């Protein structure tokens, strides 16, 4: 048995959990809820085991210390670990708030992310560490950054749900904001899916697809007709989400999630994630940079974007604690913060080159 088998097993379990959570939402049967939680926990345990097995496989490949052979060194490993952190944070929330309804929103993200990783066929191989990564800081720095990313992801979903649940009119600013956000997420995912379909058929390496061919199948296509059609389709999707957005609100109000609780979770997850991000991401990152690059701060794109993210969440906390911002205003800040997180995590690695570009290699 090897780690990939266990990863596959947890992917299947997350999908089962996703279906169970959705059925639970619809019928409110306690038994189904317990089944959903059990599937998530077992999936999580199996993913944890897989993580440690991969760690061991990495270590056995040799020539690195045990603390340095942590499998968090390329895009594939980091995406898988992001899913792991997300499920961990979700389970904590489920037990703290004794509420299962979020499962129906979180497990699909986890399941889809893992399925996307499988489908895209990105390289899963173990790659030995480049000299710059050979440090004991790797473990704490990456681990804490990802835990923070996961809490920010949670705050993003609850902030979006909050806006969905509390907007009635289509002309409201917050309504337009969340429909645009959701629509853009759908459009970008669909466009990336098309990229992969097109260039996978052409037999290209998926890592190369992300780096050089992103959106070349749609928006940046060589043929003006295709590009135009893509933009038209994107506009259509945005319009559809805007027009039928009320459906989402009805779902949320039907399952009985109170907006106040969403607001509270948004704040709490940021209040937990922010100190972890500060310590693990920025401070430990700075100490490591001081060891490896000769300066604690070198304005590498990842550092700069982390700082931007940090400022946005610092603004969130100040606006809420000092100015008493609540409701839509604060939810918008949480959403913007997470967009910065996504860019810090993926955008910088895929689009900009810098000292942190390990994920692309």
């Amino acid at each position, binding site marked *: 048995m090897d780690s990939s088998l266990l990863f596959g097993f947890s992917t299947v379990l997350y999908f089962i959990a996703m279906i169970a959570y959705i059925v639970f939402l619809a019928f409110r049967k306690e038994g189904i809820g317990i089944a959903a939680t059990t599937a998530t926990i077992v999936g999580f345990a199996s993913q944890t085991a897989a993580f440690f097995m991969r760690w061991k496989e990495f270590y056995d490949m040799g020539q690195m210390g045990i603390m340095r052979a942590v499998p968090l060194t390329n895009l594939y490993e980091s995406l898988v670990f992001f899913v792991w952190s997300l499920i961990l944070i979700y389970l904590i929330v489920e037990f703290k708030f004794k509420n299962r309804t979020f499962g129906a929103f979180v497990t699909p993200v986890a399941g889809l992310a893992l399925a996307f990783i499988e489908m895209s066929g990105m390289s899963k191989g173990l790659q030995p560490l480049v000299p710059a990564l050979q440090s004991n800081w790797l473990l704490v720095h990456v681990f804490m950054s990802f835990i923070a990313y996961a809490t920010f992801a949670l705050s993003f979903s609850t902030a979006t749900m909050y806006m969905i649940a509390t907007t009635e009119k289509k002309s409201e600013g917050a309504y337009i904001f969340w429909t645009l956000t959701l629509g853009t997420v759908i459009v970008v995912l669909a466009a990336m899916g098309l990229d992969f379909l097109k260039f996978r058929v052409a037999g290209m390496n998926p890592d190369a697809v992300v780096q050089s061919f992103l959106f070349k199948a749609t928006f940046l296509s060589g043929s003006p007709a295709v590009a135009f059609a893509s933009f038209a389709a994107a506009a259509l999707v945005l319009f559809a989400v805007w027009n039928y957005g009320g459906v989402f609100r009805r779902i949320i109000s039907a399952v009985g999630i109170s907006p106040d609780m969403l607001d509270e979770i948004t704040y709490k997850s940021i209040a937990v994630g922010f100190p972890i991000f500060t310590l693990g991401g920025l401070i430990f990152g700075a100490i490591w940079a001081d060891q490896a690059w000769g*300066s*604690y701060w070198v304005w590498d794109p990842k550092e700069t974007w982390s700082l931007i993210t940090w400022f946005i969440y610092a603004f969130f906390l100040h606006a809420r604690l000092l100015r008493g911002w609540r409701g839509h205003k604060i939810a918008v800040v949480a959403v913007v913060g997470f967009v910065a997180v996504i860019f810090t995590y993926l955008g910088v690695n895929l689009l900009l080159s810098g000292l942190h570009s390990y994920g692309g290699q």
Partner: protein
Amino acid sequence: LRSLGFKPREHGEGGSRQFYAEKGNYSRLGVYITHLSMLVIMVGAVVGIFFGFKGFLNIPEGSSYSVAFSSRKILSDIGNRERTVILNAILSSRGDVAAASARLGVEESRLLARMRAVGIEPLGFSVKCEDFDVKFYGNSDMPKEYTSHLVVIENGKAVMDKWIEVNSPLRYKGYTFYQSSYDMMNDPDDFRFIFRVAPPEGGVQEVSVKKDEPFSIPGTGIEATVTDFSPALAFNQEGRPFTYENKMNNPAARVVFREGADQYARWILRRQPATWAVVEGRSLELVDIWGSQYTGLQVRKDPGVWIVYLGCLIMSVGLYIAFFTSHRRVWVKLSGSGGSTTVMLAASAHKNREAFERKIDKTMSLLREGGK
């Protein structure tokens, strides 16, 4: 109250008694500590900018330098010329600033001032690169380690000796030397080919020769000459050798062996033991092409870094206090009339109220049960 970890204070007032207790009052300070820490970090950064040095130093294998070059200064043509003059004087005085100032006919203090002005930092000691090496994973071209053997020489004595790596710099007298780059040197006539000859009876010998310099293999009558070399040798489909990279990824030397009238040649690849020539039972291993590379060091002096770290520490503490503790207060009033006692309880928490409320409710229900 004690069960919650509070230390109550008592007031008596007529027929009633009052207790007041608080916990975590320092929690309100967390915010100020966090903001103070940012000031400390900024002070550290400013100290670094004004009193620090940031530069680089490329040292060829076997050479030493007693100065480093600033990466901040951008110079005019005149400045560049002055820099070259000063640098030549220092290099020909073997890094001795006093000797260099005598050579240039200026006072030492004046020379030091001009050096700083053109971005040459006198270190006060010299750094010698004994060797530079890249280690690879197995037979691949994936680098595992960039490493330089540095020796610090002060007043003619070697005071420090270290193999530095990317995550393990050398620190001496406030300066830190980081492994940051490397490249090939230009003049192959200076390269030294180091071979290790291992006779079957034991007793390994090392031979160091230059290109086209004949040498005899110890213990045999065979003469060998290095006629060609490659930093990264590979063979194409027809078996022809070619160089695939201008870095020392797979160094190789072409050695011509002569024994009387017999003559034959072969490539010896450092990383492939199968190619090490065997002459009369003696294996000839290529150990290094020494002097062929320089190590690129980043040099930094930053007296502010500890202030920055102190700021980071304060920030961690401040954030912990600000987000994970809260100021909680409890007031209890006991007033008795006749045989019954009325218990009034008030509580406040400035953060995470819900959790504190649950705790207080639990205590109250315990009290009620006890009362019955």
